[in-house]
């Protein structure tokens, strides 16, 4: 298949957007919203800590998903340029 410059440009733009999305998602996954025990007056700290751990895992999974899309897009771009 001959190279498709229009498709390649579109994929480059998508790749740039995906890179931004991945960086933002990785930053969020690296700093999940946690609270210290002292932040609580009641006894909800333990329950919130579990929820925050789960959320951290999901943020990391989202970042990984975006990274996968980025890899696939890079592959598509290589095909478009080939």
């Amino acid at each position, binding site marked *: 298949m001959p190279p498709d410059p229009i498709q390649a440009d579109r994929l480059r733009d998508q790749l740039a957007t995906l890179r931004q999305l991945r960086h933002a998602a990785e930053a*969020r996954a690296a700093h999940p919203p946690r609270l210290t025990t002292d932040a609580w*007056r009641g006894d*909800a700290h333990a329950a919130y800590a579990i929820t925050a751990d789960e959320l951290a895992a999901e943020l990391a999974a989202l970042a990984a998903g975006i990274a996968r899309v980025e890899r696939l897009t890079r592959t598509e771009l290589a095909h478009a340029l080939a």
Partner: protein
Amino acid sequence: MPSHDPSPLVVHAPGALFVATDELLAHLPVLTRLADEVEADGHRAAWLSLEAPSAMLRAELDACERRSFELADRVRRMRTAIAAAELAYSAAERSATAVHDVVSDWAAALLLRPAARLLLPWLALGGLAMWHLAPGSDEQKRAAIGRWMLENPQVITSPEFTALVGRVVSGADDFVLGDPLLMALLGEHGLGLMGAGTSAAVLSGVAALAGTSVLTETPVRVRHVASGPGTPPSGAAERLRRVPDQKQVRIERYSAPGEPDRFIVYVAPTQTFSPVADAEPWDLTSNITGVAGLPSGSIRATEQAMAHAGIRPDSQVVLVGYSQGGLVADAIAGSGRWNVAGLETYGDPGGGVDLPDGIRGLAVRHSDDFIPATGGPQQPVDRVIVERRAFPDAAVIPTDRPAPAHQKDAYLATARDIDGARSSAIRDELRALDAFARDYTERAGGNVTTSEYRAERISGSS
């Protein structure tokens, strides 16, 4: 400076449904922002999916979109859950306190009063006998009690002692009232017609009738002792540092071309705890008269200094006070005679002062400092109340000064943490208080003049 880990700042924001720590309050907008950002990224993934060149890529992007929306939802639910948990805690705390208050009022009336009628005379006689039988002069005995209090600061440095003082103070006249039904109706926990203020007023009245100078108010006079150029304060700690330790009133005049002058008034703490009203107006007499809601010597002296400094009833003024200085600031703000734009107090017994609506600022107190409790229960205010324990359980309490949690350095440590607070409830008040002074000094021709005032009581012989 305290050498232990600080306890969290607990924030009572006006109109808020729940009381929470600064950290938790600052966390809620963080979660809102996180949810919004994740959701926005989900929308971007959806846009990318529309232009995806292959089905596989589209499926992956759709999965990212779905996961983003689910995550945003989850974060919003977490935010709601935090608010609900704190709301439930605050409600349970309020209910428990209310029930405890009412039960202790009734118990005091039904059990303690009859018991006290029987026992108090004997206890008083016993105490008097012990005082006279103990070796040493009266001075030595007083010094021994003072030493014991210094060596055992934990006795008076705890939230439990503060609560006890609050109950004793607000229950004193209930106790005299005696009847459980009357107590429930008229006391602090009923209609609020009787309480710390009435107890203090009765004490002042009795002292005045006795005809001695003990706890008896006098006229006061004020001298302008120093003046000079100044700079605007920035932050709570700096304002508290400017509260004079001895010269009782410091007034900063802020001028800018074409604008009416503004003022910050700093009021000193108690200078003597002697019950005898001699030359010093910042004394125990002023504390008791002030808590009674009457014009104490220190309140009148501060108002005289304000008038001398050129503060008119319509001049904008911010009042800053520590300990008795806070009570004076509250009373002046509550008088309605001045145009108070802000009120910042530390460790003051002015919680019982009724303030007009709309007076913003900060009221800072330590839960293990019993002095604020001597003013009776906190009235509803539009200020942010910041509370923390100065010496948490693991802390070593200093033994070189009385009432360590009430000392200015303990409040300075708290004020520094307030300056580092992240919740908008505190930050908004700090911004407004800082801006009050800086707005003028940042203008061309803006300047600050500082004046200091010393006051004294005028006794019959002077």
